[in-house]
């Protein structure tokens, strides 16, 4: 740890003297009191430090899970960072964190396949997305073809899909976004999004803000983000199906994906226990309350 810390001379020069005593959150200190691996039995206790980083879509859930887990096992300390799915995969591959959160499997982000084989994906929850429009748009259903036409720029006016005579304003997420990757994979399929039309907003929040204030606007956001009252925007059914768990299980609603927690090598001890906890029956109601889909309902 010391040599790492001294690496950046500037920092060391000024701070190490004062801080020699207090080390950083030790990344590899995975000491577990209970030696039995796997089965997260109630009697077992865990200790150590877990750090997570990555997907902003998964972050709120991970934070909530961390709080609940730490309440259960007070000797475990968990920190959750955002940064985006790319950061999550980067950091876990570099060994900087134990768990990388991602909207897509590690292999889809990494070009280097040999690196990807070291990483193991754990599905921890499902997340549904919805097509949303400004509430002045008089439409409550779109077919996959219509959505493809709108986002590829072929359909430019709401009257072409049965609405009133109003220009369509397309709002996209940036090309590197996990939400957009899911949208392309499950809805757009082979049709390419036209980036030269409409605008691009950086996040779910920015999309919501833009949709609710722009007449004729259409975009896509995570259902977890639509919990609570949202003004001036409404969700639209896809092929007549609402984004419910039931419709997802019966494959009527296409626009959803898993959220992944990625580990380098098999997860062990408290890391394993934490991932199991996120997927567990015990935590499922919180998952649901936060707008995600618990794994217990998907399997």
């Amino acid at each position: 740890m010391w040599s790492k810390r001294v690496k950046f001379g500037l920092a060391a020069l000024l701070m190490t003297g004062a801080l020699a005593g207090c080390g950083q959150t030790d990344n590899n200190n995975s000491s577990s009191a209970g030696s039995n691996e796997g089965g997260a039995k109630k009697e077992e206790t865990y200790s150590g430090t877990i750090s997570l980083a990555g997907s902003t879509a998964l972050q709120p859930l991970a934070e909530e899970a961390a709080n609940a887990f730490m309440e259960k096992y007070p000797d475990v300390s968990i920190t959750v960072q955002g940064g985006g799915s790319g950061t999550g995969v980067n950091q876990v591959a570099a060994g900087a964190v134990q768990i990388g959160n991602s909207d897509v499997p590690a292999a889809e982000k990494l070009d280097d396949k040999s690196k990807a084989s070291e990483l193991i994906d754990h599905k921890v929850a499902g997340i549904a997305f919805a097509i949303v429009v400004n509430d002045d748009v008089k439409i409550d259903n779109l077919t996959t073809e219509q959505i493809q036409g709108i986002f590829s720029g072929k359909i430019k006016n709401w009257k072409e899909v049965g609405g009133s005579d109003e220009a369509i304003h397309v709002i996209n997420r940036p090309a590197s976004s996990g939400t957009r990757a899911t949208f392309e994979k499950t809805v757009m399929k082979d049709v390419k999004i036209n980036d030269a039309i409409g605008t691009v907003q950086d996040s779910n929040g920015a999309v919501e803000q833009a949709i609710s204030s722009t007449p004729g606007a259409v975009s896509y956001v995570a259902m977890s983000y639509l919990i609570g009252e949202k003004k001036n925007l409404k969700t639209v059914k896809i092929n007549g199906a609402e984004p419910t768990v039931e419709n997802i299980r019966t494959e009527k609603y296409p626009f959803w994906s898993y959220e992944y927690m990625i580990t380098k090598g098999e997860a062990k001890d408290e890391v394993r226990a934490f991932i199991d906890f996120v997927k567990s029956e015990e935590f499922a109601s919180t998952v649901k309350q936060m707008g995600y889909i618990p794994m217990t309902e998907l399997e």
Partner: protein
Amino acid sequence: MTARMIDKVWTGIFYAVAAAVIGLLVFFFAVVLSKGAGFWQPEFLFGRPSNTQAGGGIGPQLINSFYLLGVALFLSVPLSLGAGVYLAEYAKQGRIVGMIRLCLEAMASLPSIVVGLFGLLAFVTLTGWGYTLLGGALAVTIINLPGLTRICETAILDVPASIREGSLALGATRWQTLVKAVLPAAIPQMVTGVILAAGRIFGEAAVFIYTAGLTTPMLRWDADWSSSAHPLNVFRPAETLTVHIWKLNSEGIVPDAKLIAAKSAAVLMVAVLLFNLAARLTSSLLARHFSGSRRARRGPMKRNKAA
């Protein structure tokens, strides 16, 4: 007469521009404060944030912002004071000063996002610290170093030559003159500059997103010093208030995310205002204090002899 008319018209235009700028600021404050009404409630200022329910607070973020500011000042004030002294007193004019000045200018014009990305490479990845409060403080130090150095340098250069000469004439060394005569006289101006810089550090966001991180561990005062849960551990992630606003507006899923963001913005604006008032107040207080006692200080050797 036309020349006088034109003069009148332009005077009018100047007044209008000035009024517009003042009006703009007042308008900004009015909008931000009215949208964030209620930000003064203690349960908001000191409460814990919540991921799921409305009514969370910004306690940890506020602690982080101030603590990070403290660490950043602890790092950057001595550094820039030293550099200012070097530029003003010791460096030979010419090539070396020119080079340092060039570097200062280069640093000053760096986009803060570039510094943030550098911090991500240097303080987060290379050191292996991950996202830490110290990393954020170091990165923001880079941003503020040029400005603070300039403040210190000009404050030292603005000290009347008579003070310096008097001290040197009494046989003091250059260093003694600097520490006992020049710096005390330069302090009021420096303090003002530092407080204003502090306000800017407080409002910085882009840098911290990449270095100090987007979350805060559950802080407990009874935690071990080495644990990331201890509030004073600088090797822990620390989401500042500005980053909190950015995060709430972008990915906040709490039902009242927008309201918390608005209230946090109001807190920030008030903090910036307070920093400004503080700068003004301290500078006038210090100026009075030092101008009153300057005569005594002119002979720093007196004190030395007594000791």
